[in-house]
């Protein structure tokens, strides 16, 4: 003990929040607001500035992001900053130097409209010059002006929030307190040991920014982020800003094509860069407060990495940057946190119950994240759906340092980048290969990666199908629309609908719920009835307490106490945690993802193909839809499940992973005479399901919308209790304020005569006025999924529409790159636009 007389630590706490940056402060405050007392906030640094990233953040907030989740968190944060009186709104402009960038800015306009940010507009160079007189407008071709761009004092905001909680008598704050260990007992967090004593804690939150991985490791958990540098310099005094009455009076400029920003800072100009080579640091190598010359997260400036940026800034703002009297007063390599997928890391760690993460958060989301995670902790669910940032999303291989660093490095230079919705990562590939990989490679599969798995998205060897279906398949004219896509996908789809196709579905996350308490577990977590016959396959949503979607997946009952859950790879690990959380002491949830591989076989000839490999009765009556059983195919014992996400006759076939290649060969050989084709995820995840109006989690289904709105409220509500039941029942009893609809595009012709194809995220607007559609909860209508429907020859969009527009035949429009294209509603419920009576599936 150092004899410091700062308030002494309590022996117990409802929650110990580690880290007093913007996130920790906000979180502590919101926990107190939500009714928790006995809170402790600690930081190894001093207050008010403990020396983390908050202390040197550039503190500006651009509200529009292509991610709806991030935009929502930002919007909430801005409201909080405003309420705390630390928000200035100078506005901001993202300028474009290239035509490609202008197109991206148009996309930004669309996202803004989709998320309900209206105070934005595209501006000309002359207009930019009016707003920012010291710009050389000859260097740019336009801009995206966002009036709502703000600048905040995040340090002050954090201080105010913390003090409020202290004044309410609910929070003890202890700076200069270092955590020595986090004790875990029985898989649950128990105690935090610090340099000023131990605290028995019910919950612990790690909100330590770049130090988070170290803290997590103390408890045996993993927070996969890496500290990385972002450079910034401060030049001044700037004659233009002389006599400035506040810190910032001119709009902030983001020079997107150069990955830089410029903002006024009192009498100086701050230049920041995300353009340099990724400079990653080791969380264990961050210096202490005494060793660091400035602060632990302000590293010495490496000038060589900023040379190009000086030149770019000189081009854009020669009046200021080229002024010899304006000197470089401050220059640092500042540290911030980067994650493998660029999203924050929030939520209860899967490894340790009661241990929460609130890390890798930028100032622009700080307060919002604090509130959301606090709600999650106290109510079991945040108001803003955080499924994309959920820490439970990571697979084991994601946690490897090399993976984190490789992806963080790759993602860093895309900070202001133009990132296509379908863009693939290039680093650290070929980590998870299915047993079918060698076959797929031979067939020239074009592999995309999901959850680390290499999956064929389409097969180059299927090019010949383009000939066969030439009259029903067309290419896309605009480069952007055709990036990460191929018309071969559409041809594979048609071949499937014509005869049959084989799909590699090994990326499914598969886990078994076993034990005497297995039924209770699946009953509690899943919405639909789980007490079914052995061999029944149930497709079910998983709900949040407020009745929104946490997932949708299938459950097979394999025995009295044996259920097999199969869910999409992207969200699988979060689903695993959901079932584990729902399991009592007498149920085990076992991850068998790496034990089973899955081959999908669908199309009108699927039965013919399957029956030629097995003597089992696979007739429609003998093997009904939505059932599963083990059959023998060749010499393999295969778990066959008759369901279909592509809306055609067929099965999912499961064998142990080491037998996969053999299974492929059996099906391939049997399929050849029937013209079977290998088909990729382009069909499985998009074209197949869109024609059938099948919703997908993370697109149509998420925490924001409920089952009734999604049009999935068939059947009755089961008697047994399940998470979200009360809310769900209430939702069934009232009229939905939005309905999931399927629309088709009537006319693709754009202004310059080029046909355009929407990719998702675009706002749905009225046909004449171009007005956005807003439901009674204030939610905008936007395209949740988009893709080709080759069987009906239309481009299909899915969107939630307010009831007045949610009927078949309703005429609307979709706004794509600021142009309007007419669309018509083809389905206002789960009735498919192709084979509406589901004859194929049930044949």
């Amino acid at each position, binding site marked *: 003990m*150092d*004899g*410091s*007389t*700062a308030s002494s630590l309590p022996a117990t706490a409802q929650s110990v929040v580690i880290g007093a940056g913007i996130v920790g402060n906000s979180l502590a405050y919101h926990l107190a607001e939500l009714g928790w007392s006995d809170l402790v906030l600690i930081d190894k640094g001093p207050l008010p500035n403990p020396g983390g990233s908050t202390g040197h953040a550039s503190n500006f907030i651009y509200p529009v992001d292509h991610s709806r989740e991030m935009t929502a968190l930002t919007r909430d944060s801005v409201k909080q900053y405003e309420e705390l009186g630390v928000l200035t709104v100078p506005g901001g402009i993202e300028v474009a130097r290239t035509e490609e960038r202008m197109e991206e800015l148009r996309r930004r306009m669309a996202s803004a409209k989709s998320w309900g940010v209206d105070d934005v507009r595209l501006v000309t160079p002359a207009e930019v010059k009016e707003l920012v007189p010291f710009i050389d407008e000859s260097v740019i071709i336009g801009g995206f002006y966002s009036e709502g761009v703000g600048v905040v004092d995040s340090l002050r905001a954090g201080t105010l929030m913390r003090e409020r909680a202290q004044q309410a008598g609910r929070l003890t704050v202890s700076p200069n307190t270092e955590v020595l260990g986090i004790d875990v007992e029985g898989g649950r967090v128990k105690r935090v040991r610090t340099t000023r004593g131990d605290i028995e804690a019910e919950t612990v939150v790690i909100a330590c920014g770049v130090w988070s991985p170290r803290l997590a490791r103390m408890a045996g958990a993993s927070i996969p982020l890496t500290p990385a540098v972002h450079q910034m310099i401060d*030049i001044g005094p700037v004659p233009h800003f002389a006599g400035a009455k506040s810190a910032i009076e001119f709009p902030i400029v983001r020079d997107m094509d150069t990955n830089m920003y410029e903002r006024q800072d009192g009498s100086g100009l701050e230049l920041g860069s995300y353009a340099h080579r990724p400079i990653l640091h080791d969380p264990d*190598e961050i*210096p*202490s*407060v*005494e*060793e*660091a*010359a*400035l602060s632990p997260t302000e*590293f*010495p*400036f490496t*000038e060589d990495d900023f*040379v190009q940026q*000086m*030149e770019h*800034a*000189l081009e854009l703002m020669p009046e200021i*940057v*080229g*002024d*010899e*009297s*304006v*000197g*470089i*007063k401050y220059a640092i390599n500042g540290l911030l946190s980067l994650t493998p997928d660029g999203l924050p890391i929030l939520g209860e760690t899967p490894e340790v119950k009661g241990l929460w993460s609130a890390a890798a958060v930028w100032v622009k989301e700080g307060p919002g994240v604090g509130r959301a995670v606090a709600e999650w902790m106290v109510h079991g669910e945040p108001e803003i759906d955080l499924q994309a940032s959920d820490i439970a999303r990571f697979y084991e291989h994601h946690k490897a340092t090399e993976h984190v660093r490789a992806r963080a490095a790759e993602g860093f230079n895309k900070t202001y980048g133009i990132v296509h919705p379908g863009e693939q990562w290039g680093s650290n590939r070929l980590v998870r290969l299915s047993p079918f990989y060698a076959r797929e490679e031979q067939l020239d599969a074009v592999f995309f990666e999901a959850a680390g798995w290499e999956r064929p998205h389409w097969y180059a060897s299927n090019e010949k199908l383009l000939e066969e279906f030439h009259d029903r398949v067309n290419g896309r004219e605009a480069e952007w629309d055709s990036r990460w896509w191929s018309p071969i996908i559409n041809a594979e789809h048609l071949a499937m609908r014509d005869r049959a196709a084989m799909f590699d579905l090994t990326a499914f996350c598969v886990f078994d719920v076993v034990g005497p308490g297995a039924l209770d577990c699946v009953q509690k977590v899943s919405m639909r009835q789980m007490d079914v016959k052995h061999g029944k396959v149930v497709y079910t949503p998983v709900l949040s307490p407020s009745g929104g979607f946490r997932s949708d997946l299938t459950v097979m009952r394999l025995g009295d106490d044996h259920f097999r859950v199969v869910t999409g790879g992207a969200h699988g690990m979060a689903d695993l945690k959901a079932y584990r959380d729902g399991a009592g002491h007498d149920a085990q949830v076992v991850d068998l993802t790496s034990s089973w591989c899955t081959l999908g076989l669908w199309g009108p000839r699927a039965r013919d193909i399957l029956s030629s490999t097995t003597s089992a009765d696979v007739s429609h009556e003998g093997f009904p839809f939505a059932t599963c059983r083990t059959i023998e195919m060749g010499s393999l014992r295969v778990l066959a499940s008759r369901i279909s996400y592509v809306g055609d006759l067929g099965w999912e076939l499961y064998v142990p992973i080491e037998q996969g290649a053999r299974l492929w060969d059996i099906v391939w050989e049997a399929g050849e005479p029937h013209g079977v084709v290998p088909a990729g995820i382009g069909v499985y995840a998009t074209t197949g399901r869109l024609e059938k109006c099948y919703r997908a989690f993370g697109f149509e289904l998420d925490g924001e919308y409920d089952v009734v709105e999604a049009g999935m409220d068939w059947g009755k509500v089961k008697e047994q209790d399940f998470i979200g039941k009360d809310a769900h029942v209430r939702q069934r009893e009232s009229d939905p304020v939005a309905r999931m609809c399927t629309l088709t595009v009537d006319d693709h012709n754009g202004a310059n005569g080029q046909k355009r194809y929407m990719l998702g995220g675009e706002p749905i607007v009225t046909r004449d006025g171009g007005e956005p559609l807003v439901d009674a909860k204030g939610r905008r209508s936007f395209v949740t999924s988009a893709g080709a429907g080759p069987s009906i020859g239309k481009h299909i969009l899915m969107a939630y529409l307010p009831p007045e527009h949610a009927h078949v035949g309703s005429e609307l429009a979709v706004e794509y790159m600021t142009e309007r294209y007419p669309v018509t509603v083809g389905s206002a419920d789960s009735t498919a636009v192709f084979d509406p009576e589901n004859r194929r599936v049930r044949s």
Partner: protein
Amino acid sequence: MCVKRVPLTGGKMVLTADEQALETRHLGFTISPHEECGVEEAVRLIEQHGGEVTVLTLGPPEAEEQLRDCMAIGADRGILLEDGGEEWDPEASAQAIVAAITAAEEADGGFDLIVCGNESADAGNFQVGIRVAYALGRPVATGLKGLSVDGDRARCEQEVPGGRDVYELALPALVSVLEGINLPRYPSVPAKLRARQKPVERSAPERPESRLEKVRLLVPAGQAGQQAEILGEGPDAAPAVVEVMRDLGVA
């Protein structure tokens, strides 16, 4: 202008395991504060009188960074003498500097004034400037807080108790200056970019035996582990403070 690359230390001195140097993993580098002011002074002189500033350093290859920093505030060219990764004692340093200056003067003409920092921030040997001056046969004044040039004479001012002592030196001469002689300017962005294009001559002189030989470095006792007595928090501690002052006899 002679400068030396030194680490920018924080609040604590951390040594490498072999006790031969400071641990510089997390540290940036700069030149000694006296030298920073020296470069500024040299640049001001040529701004006033015309001429050129050459900046010279004996150091590792990375010391080019420091030469470029000097160029960014106005030096015209640089000379980098590579030290081979070793520490050179003041005599050896002076020798190398003298050889380089002699060569430079033979090639491009004499330097009217050679400016050094009074002592380097790290080794603080207080003698390199004087040794160089003798070897080149120039008069030398040290520890200057004021400097001006008039024709072929330099007026040098030193701070002493009660005022300033003035020396007049005939040029060519050598002076060593102290921080405080001026407030150095910050480099502008264009100046930084120009600095990257200015010429730097490199060579690797041979290091003679050290006659002032470093055995090891030590962190003085009392730097680690000393605990201050906390008299209190906030304004409430005022009475305790005044009591201490009275005990010390200063209140």
